[in-house]
């Protein structure tokens, strides 16, 4: 008799903390089941507690990978974005989350990795490495990356400047970038408050944009950032 061949999971020797923090993650059934249940509950909560409305779902590309960019007003932004994509796609949606905050402790890592499916983004030391991880993720068909190009939540309600990461990621590529604008986030969950308030949230999704005509020079990167900033702002001004 020939011996059986076993193919142990590549993350078998990882501790729980490493398991949660390392990316990409293995497709475990239990993980998917918990996340699907969490996504269902999240949708119900956003619909009832925040009366979330989503306009422009038809702008989401139905095939291929794409990026969602949005203004960053509160922690609710990510949750609203997750609610905007079809439930069957939820395990292929990866919000880029600041590794120094969302993966700083075991409980936060567990919520970020298991429930949110966040991609740990190092915004301090290994930003370029994190962008490479994002590029590789988007090379596979059907993945969705959520990015908040401001890099941090606004405290004033005004949208900040877009950092260069999004430009470096998409300039010279044919990846669709979908601009989104969320209104109501600052009032619903201001920075520094422990719990969200029952305020209305409105998410508008714009038409996808592509930047294959631009190169990855600093001018090209700046142009991408300016164009996306403008697109998100216009969605915001149209909704108000």
């Amino acid at each position, binding site marked *: 008799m020939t011996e*059986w061949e*076993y*193919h*142990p*999971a590549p*993350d*078998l*020797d*990882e*501790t*729980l903390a*490493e398991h949660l923090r390392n990316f990409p993650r*293995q*497709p*475990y*059934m*239990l993980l998917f089941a918990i996340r699907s249940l969490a996504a269902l509950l999240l949708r119900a909560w956003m619909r009832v507690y925040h009366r979330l409305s989503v306009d422009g779902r038809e702008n989401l590309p139905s095939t291929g990978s794409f990026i969602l960019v949005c203004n960053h007003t509160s922690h609710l932004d990510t949750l609203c974005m997750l609610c905007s994509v079809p439930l069957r796609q939820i395990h292929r949606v990866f919000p880029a989350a600041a590794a120094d905050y969302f993966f700083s402790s075991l409980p936060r890592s567990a919520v970020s990795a298991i429930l949110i499916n966040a991609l740990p983004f190092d915004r301090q030391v290994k930003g370029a490495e994190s962008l490479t991880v994002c590029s590789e993720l988007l090379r596979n068909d059907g993945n969705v990356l959520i990015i908040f190009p401001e890099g941090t939540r606004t405290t004033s309600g005004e949208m900040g400047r877009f950092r260069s990461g999004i430009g470096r990621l998409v300039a010279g590529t044919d990846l669709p970038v979908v601009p989104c604008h969320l209104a109501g986030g600052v009032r619903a969950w201001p920075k520094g408050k422990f719990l969200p308030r029952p305020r209305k949230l409105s998410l508008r999704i714009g038409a996808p944009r592509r930047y294959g005509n631009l190169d990855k020079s600093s001018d090209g990167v700046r142009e991408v950032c300016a164009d996306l900033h403008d697109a998100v702002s216009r969605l915001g001004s149209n909704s108000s």
Partner: protein
Amino acid sequence: MTLDAALQNDIVLTYLLIIATALGVAGLALAILTALGKNVGPIWRTYRGWLVMVPIVLAAVLLGRTAFIIGVALLAILGFKEYARATGLYEDWWMTGLVYLGIVLLATASHVQDPRLGHDGWYGLFMALPAYVIGAILLVPIFRNESKGQLQRIALAIVGFMYFGWMFSHLGFLANAQYAYGYILYLLFAVEINDVAAFTCGKICGKHKLRENISPKKTLEGAIGALVISLGLAWALSFSFPHFAWWEVLLAGLIVGIGGQLGDLVISYIKRDIGIKDMGALIKGHGGILDRVDSMIFVAPIFFHVVRWLHGLREVPVS
């Protein structure tokens, strides 16, 4: 089993005292060894692992029957998950899904009332479930219309369900026994002491290999030492089962002393065949969940059926 009943139960209170003392003495001994300059770093890690695990396990026992059955089911699910990750079965969602479902059904059978007899725990369903779950697993290739490599997947799934699911879930079903606290706390404590005893005796006087092709570090002296200590421990903890005759106490010690080491060896040859050292790294200083509960998997069903055969789970007169 309820929280109030647990806190008024002499057996529970005695075990709490014993466990707290054991942890305190072990911590003190490690602190002294550290102060003497001995290298006990890895043992400290293992000890810290105990400090996390013991309160969780005790909480599950103290909170009552439901919490304990759920706790055992969660351990079985996480244990099977480790096994599925180690063997590669995790990629087959149908097989793993059926095993998870089977474990949930085992927990349900352990918890619900027997519809004919009216008492907690549906023993007939618990015993019949393997037939249904194995039947369902065998049907998967037919539904998928696939044959290549299916026998390996089916075999892995059936072993996973029977060993990590069904055999281990006997521990949860014990929560329905009249002497649940005594049985469960004895098994939890004695099995772990048996593990520690095998390790310690092997370290101190181990010369002859027990099964060198399966686990090269285990020794015959360690196994005998653990068996002797388990027999002594059963006698010392005989207050856990006041209705047992002297030879039944001895039998309880034998089950733990032999079954515990057999369970350890089973996981060892599974790991060796796969070519891995630990089943996971979830518990610092201990490895995976299966590395911690391996001995219990063999002990729980043997103890359960011996006790049920000798006394029944409920018919014991209160002494």
